[in-house]
């Protein structure tokens, strides 16, 4: 399990994003998150499997009024894929997001914190995917250090309540500004561009870095597939293409370009589908029967 998790993580932390977005950081962030320990997916996979039959909340959403009024496509797709895999193993999954972002999900109605707090009580395991959290000064920022207060829901206190109640939380992010990166806050301040401004202070039980947050969500689904031996729980490359076409049609934006196109973080659908293909291959190889070659 350690070998395959190591390779899943190497794959989803391969940095492909275009220049203009933060580059050169994800490998270091991943190493810092791992801190010399075993691959992160080992514990994350166990945590996911331990919540079979329980209530899982998946939190996502990153709208920017004027630029991405219907939100960004990085986050929702990873959430849907991870959530679908968890539903298939018996979890009761609820998606939480801003109303304007994704009408088919359960939404967070407002950006004020008190309104969101009750969600903590209806959740046994929380997964946040590309969900920004507060920095040391209490504000939220994009990876380019633009202020994001009042543009999206703040769920810091939801995570705090879950943690205080001893519940498991998993933070998936790709920039250093999302919930979960509080686990390696000092590293981000020192090593990530705009780190002192954007570093999120919110900690989670598990941090799962990815070069694109969606890919982290796909990796969670792959972990469930690894544990169950059911390859159909993995994301599918054709479906990834369909999803990115759908988000473009619904004006859910590519965060790399700010346009409604079938890219994610500036990376075309075909390439994101390629990541999905290799993820499936990793799971498939893990479950394939060994053979003895006679030559």
């Amino acid at each position, binding site marked *: 399990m350690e*070998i395959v998790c*190591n*390779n899943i993580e*190497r*794959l989803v*932390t*391969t*940095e*492909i*994003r*275009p*220049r*203009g*977005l933060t*580059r*050169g950081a994800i*490998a270091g962030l991943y190493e810092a998150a791992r801190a010399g320990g075993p691959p992160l997916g080992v514990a994350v996979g166990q945590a996911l499997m331990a919540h079979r039959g329980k209530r899982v909340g998946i939190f996502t959403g990153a709208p*920017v009024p*004027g*630029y991405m009024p219907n939100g960004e496509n990085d986050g929702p797709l990873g959430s849907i894929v991870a959530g679908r895999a968890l539903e298939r193993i018996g979890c009761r999954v609820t998606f939480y997001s801003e109303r304007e972002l994704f009408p088919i999900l359960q939404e967070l109605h407002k950006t004020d914190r008190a309104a969101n707090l009750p969600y903590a009580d209806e959740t046994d395991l929380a997964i946040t995917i590309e969900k920004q959290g507060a920095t040391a000064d209490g504000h939220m920022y*994009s990876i*380019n250090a*633009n202020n994001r207060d009042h543009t999206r829901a703040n769920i810091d206190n939801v995570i705090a309540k879950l943690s205080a109640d001893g519940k498991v939380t998993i933070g998936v992010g790709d920039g250093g500004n999302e919930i979960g990166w509080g686990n390696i806050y000092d590293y981000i301040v020192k090593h990530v561009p705009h780190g002192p401004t954007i570093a999120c202070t919110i900690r989670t039980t598990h941090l799962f870095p990815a070069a694109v947050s969606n890919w982290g969500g796909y990796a969670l689904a792959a972990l469930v597939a690894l544990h169950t031996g059911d390859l159909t729980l993995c994301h599918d*490359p054709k479906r990834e293409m369909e999803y990115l076409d759908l988000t473009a049609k619904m004006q859910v934006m590519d965060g*790399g*370009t*700010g346009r409604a196109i079938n890219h994610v973080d*500036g*990376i*075309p659908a*075909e*390439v994101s*589908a*390629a*990541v999905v*293909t*290799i993820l499936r*291959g*990793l799971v498939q*190889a*893990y*479950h*394939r*029967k*060994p*053979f003895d*070659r*006679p*030559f």
Partner: protein
Amino acid sequence: MPETFGLHVDRLVTVEMRRAGDPSRGIIVPLYEAASRAQRGRPLTLLAAEGLTRSITRGRYVVFLTGSGRAPWRPRGETDGPLGVVSLARALKLGLGARPVYVAAEPYLPPVVAASEAAGITPSPDRTMAEFDGFYPTALVRPFTLQKEQAQAQARAILDELNPAAVISIETLSPNEKGVIHSATGYERESQHVAHTFHLVEEARGRGIFTIGIGDFGNEVGCGLIAAEAKQINPYGLRCKCPCGAGVVSRIATDVLVIGNISNWAAYGVAACLAYLCKNPDVLQGVDTERRMGLDCVYAGAEGGGGMKQPWVDHTSPETQQAMVAMLRMLLENTLRAASDRGW
């Protein structure tokens, strides 16, 4: 910037996808890290590409070695090797104006030739064709003897004739410290099944010609650079399944050693780095070219774990090969593209 690019190319091509129970599962990252330590911690694919750009001038020959097979199971060899050779040969031809030379035992040449034609590089045994600088790119083909007694002399003759700027080995089996060549399953690979092309590398090094070894197990040309560590990492490193008992690890070192999960992938990584240095993404083949290369390679008889005529490579699917190329291409294109300020 080059280091970040090279690091992520290395990371991608060393994602290990070997099946559970395979004794070589889990060795790629340790082999890669050992090779990286032995080469000043630089990204290996970038190191190889930099060495090639330094060594090669337009019109110089570059010798490629490959060919791993075993009749009756793989009488025309395997898909790992030929596709990497063709990718890198194409990159050197288009990027640096080099003249590729394909060297392999006669039975293993058809898949190389077929994949090369699919990639738009026309191979020929005729130097007039190989030196044709007209409207389509070409390569030279040189069959290599399976008579091991003749191998060293032929190696010298090839170097004397062509005076290549570099010798590149991709997935070429080579001898351990006792001179015995082994398969990845620990068996002896007898000389009637494997050309002793490693003499070309030894001769080239003696003449100061730049050499690159690309491998994915430890028994290939180049892995001699990390022999001591590879013996500890490889499941048959200390003890093989043949009477020699000295393990499978190669004693043949090269100036640069590149490790990948599949040797082809490592070669694609070097081609990507060449494309980066040439500032031209098309120096690396695209997904459609990769698909055609794979198909034509197996139609010519190579096998890769998916059965005859199925373009699998080292037991990974055709779609996976194309996915690898798609990711490398995007990594390359996004790195070469000018930065834009998103503005919000």
